[in-house]
């Protein structure tokens, strides 16, 4: 019995309602949807960091289209109707639910003051769309069949390892397994080469995954959880069998999948995966601190760092939860809310500052306040205008701080920025952090 029950047993008798952090049942998030207060903390940059009139918004969807229905607060309200099956799925409603990169800005923004599960609610809305037979969008279905058929999200038939040249020397067996991901295997192959070059320069052995296939990011993100679960099971099993201690990705989206969404799909804790999940920037930063990685070649550029959502606010470890909600909305057992504290904010900056010649300028929207480029999670494929809009806004911000180059730790951001810059004739350069580190790293191998 709680203290309050003891004090006034006759007065406070709120019945307890069971719930779980399970996105496969939207009802789990009814309390959260009912308690959204329209404070728009999910939309604005944290007010403490508010830079003024410009660059003040961190929700790309609602910046793109300004009706409240595009913001998390709008979707939370619509979600209540969906949960009760009181609103019809239409193309427009599908746009509201899917024109959204699930960037997590709303989730950390909301949890600045409250304890609502906004990010999970948005995921649950996608699952609900699929359960109702309305989602995902046709283009997402095409990508899903491509992945299931070819093992990659481009439907590419060519060899996944075609990017490897003679300089790439993975070990047969190593503690670290480098999971390259679709984008770096087919589109942004320079990132894969750069990651391996830096690893070799630091003398850190790594192996590659045998028969690597897509991590399933888009499949999961559009709400196809059953299909995504199969991929998760298969991939996790492969790493366990390999004996690797660390699964390393060079892609922010893969990182979140492995670290957060696989455990979520498998209903286990991240720490129970049987191996650690790290992004390349964590490994590189450790190597730098230990003196293994030497950044010696000057790169004379003024750059800015774009915190990709999935190496920042979206990557707190996962912990399954089942409990009850009662008195004044309190839950039992205690729930440790994921607030984005585990973001790799400092790792990236430490690495960049260590490069000789680099002049790192921060954009007003940085770290957990970063504006997502909307290039990931199946958003760009379905809503290219949204992805271009967000990338353009961010490139403008980079120019505003005088940066010559935008650097991120995600190949999907890299593609979106460079494609948009090219389309606009924009001069700002775009690089992945691995590419920059590869330029600066000591050549030769240890």
């Amino acid at each position, binding site marked *: 019995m*709680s*203290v*309050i029950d003891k004090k*006034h047993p006759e007065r*406070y008798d*709120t019945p307890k309602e069971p719930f779980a952090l399970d996105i496969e049942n939207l009802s789990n998030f009814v309390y959260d949807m*009912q*308690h*959204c*207060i*329209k*404070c*728009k*903390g999910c939309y*604005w940059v*944290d*007010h*403490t960091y*508010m*830079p*003024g*009139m410009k660059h003040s918004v961190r929700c790309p969807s609602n910046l793109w*289209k*300004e*009706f*409240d*229905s*595009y913001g998390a607060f*709008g979707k939370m*309200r*619509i979600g*209540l109707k969906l949960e009760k099956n009181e*609103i*019809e799925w*239409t193309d*427009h*409603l599908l746009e*509201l639910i899917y024109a959204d990169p699930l960037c997590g800005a709303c989730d*950390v*923004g909301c*949890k*600045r*003051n*409250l*304890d609502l599960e906004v990010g999970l609610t948005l995921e649950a809305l996608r699952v609900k769309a699929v359960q109702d037979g309305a989602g995902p969008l046709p283009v997402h279905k095409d990508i899903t069949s491509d992945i299931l058929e070819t093992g990659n999200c481009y439907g590419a038939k060519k060899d996944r390892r075609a990017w490897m040249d003679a300089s790439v020397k993975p070990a047969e067996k190593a503690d670290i397994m480098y999971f390259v991901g679709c984008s770096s295997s087919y589109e942004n192959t320079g990132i894969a080469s750069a990651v391996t070059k830096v690893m070799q320069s630091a003398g850190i052995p790594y192996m590659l995954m045998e028969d690597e296939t897509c991590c399933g990011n888009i499949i999961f993100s559009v709400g196809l959880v059953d299909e995504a679960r199969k991929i998760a099971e298969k991939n996790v099993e492969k790493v366990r069998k390999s004996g690797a201690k660390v699964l390393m990705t060079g892609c922010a989206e893969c990182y979140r999948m492995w670290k957060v969404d696989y455990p979520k799909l498998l209903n286990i804790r991240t720490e129970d995966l049987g191996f650690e999940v790290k992004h390349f920037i964590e490994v590189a930063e450790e190597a730098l601190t230990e003196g293994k990685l030497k950044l010696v070649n000057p790169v004379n550029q003024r750059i800015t760092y774009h915190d990709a959502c999935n190496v920042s*606010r979206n990557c707190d470890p996962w912990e399954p939860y089942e409990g009850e909600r009662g*008195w*004044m*909305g*309190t*839950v039992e057992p*205690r*729930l440790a*809310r994921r*607030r984005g*504290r585990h*973001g790799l904010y400092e790792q990236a900056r430490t690495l960049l500052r260590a490069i000789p010649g680099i002049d790192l300028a921060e954009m007003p929207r940085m*770290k*957990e*306040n970063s504006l997502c480029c909307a290039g990931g999670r199946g958003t760009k494929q379905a809503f290219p205008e949204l992805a271009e809009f967000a990338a353009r806004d961010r490139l403008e911000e980079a120019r505003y701080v005088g940066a010559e180059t935008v650097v991120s730790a995600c190949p999907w951001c890299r593609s979106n920025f460079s494609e948009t810059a090219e389309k606009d004739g924009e001069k700002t350069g775009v690089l992945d952090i691995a590419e920059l580190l590869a330029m600066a790293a000591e050549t030769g191998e240890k």
Partner: protein
Amino acid sequence: MSINKHAYQAIEAVVGRNYITDDPADCEGYRSGPGGYESGTGYERVMTKIAGAVVMPRTTEDVQKIVKICGRFGVPFVPYSTGFYGPRSHPHMEHELIIDMKRMRDFEIDEKHFFITVQPGVIYSQIQQECFEKGAYVVIGGGGAQTSAVANLLNDGWSPLSFRVGLPQRRILGMEVVMPDGEIVKMGSLADGDDPFWGEGIGPDLRGIMRGYTGLLGCLGICTRMAIKTLPFQPEIPKPSGISPETALQLDPKRVRWINFTMPSLESIEQAHIMIGNAEIGGAVTKVPVFWRAIAKAECKEDFWDLWLKETEESVSNFFLVRVLLIGYTSEEQMDYDYHVLCDIIEELGGKERRTKPSDESWFKNADSAGMWLMTGSYVSVDYVMDTFTQAFKQGPNYRDLKAKYTPPLMPDCKDLGWFQSCEMGHLGYYEYLIYWDQREDTNGMDQFYVESAKMNIENGCYPALLGAHQPLYLTGPAYGPGYHEWILGLKEVFDPQWICHPPLPLAHDEFVERAEWMHEVKNWETPEEFPYPEKLKENMRLEK
């Protein structure tokens, strides 16, 4: 749903198809509640409706055209700046149009004359940063850094920073308003050129009508531009620090400093407010509810209740803390002087300085009122009392005793006395009483308490701020006017004879009391047999039933 088809098409021709919608999902996205200010209350459930359509104008001319079209087709509309003010900023009629002002975000700062000019889409934290950069600051209403400065100043406008200029209407300078008939009225010196520096004139000064003490909640026109007084600050721009949720504004302790003092008694807190005001030092003096301290320490509901349930009525009634903000407006020496005067006052009263963080988490730039919902999920401020300092101060025990009768459903707060502060350098007292509950419970008691508190204020001769548009007008009007209700209704008749601007305000709470059966037992004031609505509104209400 939607609104009149012809009106919709005409408005679409004004703003373009991307800025108007009647899609059911979009309109649902604008729903008032079920969470938020006053949400889950009877008022929200009984009085609010889903919008028929939403439009986002860009210019004053757009607003004017939209309002005229609404007038032509009899479409009710409600101005909506950020929509944080709960049910009161949402439609109360079927087929009503929300005029969402967020695209109107022009901002200008006149550094030399210390004022800014903004449209309603501009929010306080944006303004504060721009002001900091020019050595100025504004009073961010305690309702939040995320609220529209225009909407806040039309209705409220208080925070501990009101210590220097406490009457919000004094911070409103020139103003541009689209009246309910679509005429544009330029107030203050804006009427004579483009310089908004004077609120009083040359030109009409209708601030008393537009906002009075706490405004008419958007039922007498739409403000499209407002010049707002800024106050001189000190030169250091406070720097943000930390990662969410532990973010704060770092202050230079030589120029800006919050200091907490423990005091020996409630009387000594009252005296401290008065003496600091008399000494004309500082930037804020306040005593906040004790449970806010627990909110500040808690990260989630469970943390809060763990902390709060350790308190008892005795521990709360014996906790005396006053919080003072010092600002070195002109120099470090001035700040030092103020500090010594402050210490003398506190010493004389038997108080003690406590260690206080050299940062600001909640008043300067991030008035994070969202934290109000952490404890129970539902919240409303029942009243703001603006009165002489001593009169305002007296309200604490009155509210505490009344609230006890309604607990539960209201949160057990160990008989906390509420929030008070000094405004206008001690010439004005501000008292706010806040209540919290779980909206999943039976909340009829909360609805009754709200109205009972107005009756209590009348009985005690206290001047509350939540008058007409917030409470039953036929209850508060005769008491405070005595013809206040007739005056407000007369204005409504003259400026909005069709009652299309946010109907049925200013009679919405009267209407609620009539419609909600559980309110009948607390109704003991006179109302006319029929409210003086125009025939068309009566007909629409009949149709909605």
